[in-house]
């Protein structure tokens, strides 16, 4: 069976997970280990007027009780935002100060105020309850619209009116003109609900300080250990990079929430130095709800104009983005460059303008969550398109077809240059797979059973494979977004790939091995993947933004190119042939047209014995490459959802779900389909089940699975997955990326289907039974009409 590109290779990593031998951060136990428990603010906004640690310090097992003044006093820096966004008047964003342990003010429920280090978790928790913090409560605001009102509570002194930035993209005058000339204008207010990422493994950290070497080791639940090390070193001043090793072992899901370097990891490292003990902290789920960066939370007012023929004439968007109490690591980029640059969707729109106001509130920071900006864009655009079609009495698929971009490259008015795609082909493929032609019959049959059946489309596009370093640098990014790889061919011919990408469920150990096995004709077992340890792997940027295929694998390809070049030289020299005649196939290096060959391992051995190498060639066979993408990649597709609503209760079931995605080249269809399944479930979750709710005092009402509704097996259907393929011209394998598409494309398809079923377009996410029933009351649509 083939194990190369395109093969459904079973995952190499599964055995340790199915036998209980995975090694996650909380499984790590080290010598001299103590436990950290954080004292957190119970108030959403309060002055800290005093901390009495005496009772806690005297309790059994307590090693230290540390506070923010001690932390800042030791020179630990404030948390940073890694992407500088400017307002439309050119002024820089207003960064509110965020200390890992709050010193004078707590700004959300869960803001860390102090930490207890004790011999056991139990003792640390008991003592944390005994730390007495005096608070002076301040007024609270939790929503972005209220935070901008005059007289709203001020969250940061340097952000007047709680405005962090007032950013724009596109041409306002052109958009206004396009709208003025329109024959029809669709206007909507759309809320993109606030979500909690909820990887099943809670965040965890084990910090180890070696006083003799002045060296730190941090085991942590990170999607990007090198970035964590860089930030911990350069900005938080924990230790210089060469004195800090960050290890992200098996990580139980990330979805964005584990990109960031949080107060807890910083504090554990510092506390390990302070106490001379190794310090472990593992979040419980309620802490995860309170402190993991949330996702989305937009309020958008938008207008889209159409001419007589249904061609879009202009699109104007005003968005309020709730940033939470502080700027998180990429929270400026998510609602701006990752969102509004996709307002063109799959459509040829000449005139677009977007304005985004980033707003502070007394809630946990909001940052990238699976999709990061693109789900917000696709939900907006696809809800507008479906609604416009209904308003104009057009078939929603036909309206989309009339506006599809048909030739590439295509420059949108919002920065992006789409490089390849087949939008009409995706729609055709999805319509066929979903049997859209048979929908009227299915709807009629459902009505017989007393159910309202609806169908909804979503033609999403996203930008991933982030991203060209110079381009993102010019837009304000503080880092480059290239990736690195090292290919080590051992003297016996086996290969280790050291990658800067990080796998926390994506199956890199399998897919990365596949491209190596294919390239050199080797058994996949002879390839191993090393990642997640800054002491082992060269600097790399990590995994998010569906970049491990398009960027991470490209770096491996580039390193393999170098290896191959050297292999050719060695073989040509040993076999006394011309380099041009050397071919590599089936694990052998051959001279074309002859029977002369070296087996792969013989080349490895030759490189390391160095007895007979070309003059001047260095021994060894190991190459490193850094790959910087030339463009974003643009996965796109068409999703079609069918739902059935029980009109008496509002209960909605997704009864059919079809995805036709164009991910370019696919390395392992099994794994790619799995990514779509998971993304679609998160999309169904956003559309129908999940929503973070704070009350007006800033208390989190959805602080556990008792109130935050996670998708379960009986909430979702089997998914039908089809693949279209236009190769991405920007990278050597032609890969676009598949990790987030499901979460991006699904919500609009679901809401379009439910609103189709109930005959009321006024429905916000999550479309719970209560909301659907309420919308049905408003629609008062007689079933018999169908």
């Amino acid at each position, binding site marked *: 069976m083939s194990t190369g590109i395109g093969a459904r290779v*079973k*995952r190499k*990593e*599964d*055995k*340790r*997970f*199915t*036998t*209980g*031998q*995975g*090694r*996650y951060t*909380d*499984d790590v*136990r080290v010598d001299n280990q103590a436990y950290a428990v954080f004292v957190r603010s119970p108030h959403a906004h309060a002055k800290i007027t005093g901390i009495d640690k005496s009772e806690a310090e005297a309790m059994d097992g307590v090693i230290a009780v540390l506070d923010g003044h001690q932390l800042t006093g030791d020179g630990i820096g404030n948390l940073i935002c890694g992407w500088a966004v400017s307002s439309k008047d050119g002024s820089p964003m207003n960064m509110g100060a965020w200390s890992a342990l709050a010193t004078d003010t707590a700004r959300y429920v869960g803001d860390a105020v102090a930490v207890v280090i004790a011999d056991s978790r*139990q003792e640390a928790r008991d003592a944390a309850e005994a730390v007495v913090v005096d608070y002076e409560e301040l007024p609270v605001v939790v929503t972005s619209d209220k935070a901008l009102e005059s007289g709203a509570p001020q969250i940061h002194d340097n952000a007047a009116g709680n405005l962090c930035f007032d950013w724009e993209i596109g041409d306002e005058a052109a958009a206004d003109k396009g709208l003025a000339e329109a024959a029809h204008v669709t206007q909507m207010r759309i809320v993109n609900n606030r979500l909690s990422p*909820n*990887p*099943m*493994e*809670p965040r965890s950290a084990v910090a180890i300080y070696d006083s003799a070497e002045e060296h730190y080791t941090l085991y942590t639940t990170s999607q990007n250990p090198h970035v964590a090390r860089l930030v911990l070193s350069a900005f938080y001043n924990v230790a210089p990079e060469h004195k800090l090793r960050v290890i992200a072992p*098996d*990580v*139980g*899901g990330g*979805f964005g929430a584990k990109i960031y370097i949080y107060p807890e990891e910083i504090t554990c490292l510092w506390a390990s130095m302070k106490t001379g003990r190794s310090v472990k902290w593992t979040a*419980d*789920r*309620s802490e995860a709800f309170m402190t993991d960066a949330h996702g989305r939370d937009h309020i958008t007012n938008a207008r889209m104009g159409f001419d007589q023929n249904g061609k879009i004439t202009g699109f104007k968007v005003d968005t309020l983005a709730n940033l939470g109490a502080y700027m998180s690591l990429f929270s400026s980029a998510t609602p701006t460059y990752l969102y509004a640059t996709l307002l063109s969707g799959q459509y040829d729109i000449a005139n677009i303008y977007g304005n985004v106001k980033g707003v502070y509130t007394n809630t946990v920071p909001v940052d990238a969550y699976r999709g990061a900006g693109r789900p917000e864009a696709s939900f907006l655009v696809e809800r507008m398109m479906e609604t416009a079609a209904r308003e104009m009495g057009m078939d929603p698929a036909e309206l989309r077809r009339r506006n599809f971009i048909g030739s590439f490259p295509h420059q949108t008015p919002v920065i992006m240059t789409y490089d390849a795609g087949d939008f009409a082909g995706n729609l055709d493929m999805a319509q066929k797979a979903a049997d859209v032609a048979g929908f009227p019959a299915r709807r009629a049959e459902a009505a017989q059973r007393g159910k309202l059946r609806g169908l909804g489309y979503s033609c999403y596009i996203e930008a991933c494979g982030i991203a060209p370093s110079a381009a993102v640098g010019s837009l304000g990014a503080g880092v480059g977004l290239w990736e690195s790889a090292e290919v080590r061919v051992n003297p016996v011919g086996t290969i280790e790939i050291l990658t800067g990408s990080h796998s*926390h*469920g*994506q*199956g890199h150990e399998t897919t990365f091995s596949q491209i190596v096995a294919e390239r050199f004709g080797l058994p996949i077992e002879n390839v191993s993947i090393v990642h997640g340890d800054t002491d082992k792997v060269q600097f790399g940027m990590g995994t998010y933004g569906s970049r491990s295929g398009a960027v991470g694998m490209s770096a491996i390809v580039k390193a393999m190119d170098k290896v191959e070049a050297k292999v050719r030289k060695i073989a040509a020299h040993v076999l006394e042939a011309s380099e041009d005649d050397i071919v590599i196939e089936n694990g052998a290096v051959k001279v074309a047209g002859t029977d002369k060959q070296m087996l792969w391992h013989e080349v490895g051995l030759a490189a390391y014995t160095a007895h007979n190498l070309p003059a001047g060639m260095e021994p060894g066979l190991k190459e490193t490459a850094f790959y910087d993408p030339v463009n974003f990649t643009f996965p796109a597709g068409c999703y079609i959802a069918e739902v059935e609503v029980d009109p008496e209760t509002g209960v909605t079931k997704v009864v059919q779900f079809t995805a036709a995605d164009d991910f370019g080249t696919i390395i392992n269809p*099994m*794994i790619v*389909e*799995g990514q*779509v*399944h*998971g*993304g*679609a*479930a*998160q999309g169904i979750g956003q559309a129908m089940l999940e929503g973070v709710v704070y009350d007006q005092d800033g208390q989190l009402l959805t602080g*556990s*699975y*008792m109130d935050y509704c*996670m*998708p*379960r*097996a*009986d909430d*979702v259907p*089997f*998914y039908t997955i089809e693949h279209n393929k236009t190769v991405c011209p920007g990278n050597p394998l032609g890969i676009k990326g598949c990790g987030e598409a*499901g979460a991006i494309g699904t919500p609009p398809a679901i809401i379009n289907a439910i609103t189709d079923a109930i005959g009321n377009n006024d429905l916000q996410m999550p479309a719970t039974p209560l909301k659907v029933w309420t919308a049905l009351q408003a629609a008062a649509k007689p079933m018999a009409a169908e």
Partner: protein
Amino acid sequence: MTKVSMKVNGKAVSRDVPDNTLLVDFLREQLRLTGTHVGCDTTQCGACVVHVNGKSIKSCTQLAVSLAGAEVTTIEGIANGADLHPMQVAFNDHHGLQCGFCTPGMIMTGIDMVNRYQAQGRELTEEAIRFELEGNICRCTGYHNIVKAIDAAAQQMSGMAKAAE
């Protein structure tokens, strides 16, 4: 401290632990069987599911001290030497896992449901599998391949049960 003795994965174990020690902490911290995970505080996620006296339970919501004399089986104890349990094989065959964190609980729940349905002579339909997974949350797979894996393992286990008769 109370001395707790039980059989875990066929082996007699005994430890002195505080009375408030949960079974999951007994397994993870005392026995260092770290395949059983904790994913929530509200007895809902199922990452901690093990078998006690042949039935699935949530080890995060049972005191170790109350299980004196019990037979406990964890994810580390279901393979027969090098031969993996059919449920473990099926999760690999059908890509029923991604990050792997919920997987031990899924597998233990899967084995329990197959055993119960087969003992009661009931058909384990797709709908039944989804119903039985109510207490196990996965964030990665969208459940599609978990359902497929359990279904496939059920066929396999049924064949084995028949062959043994």
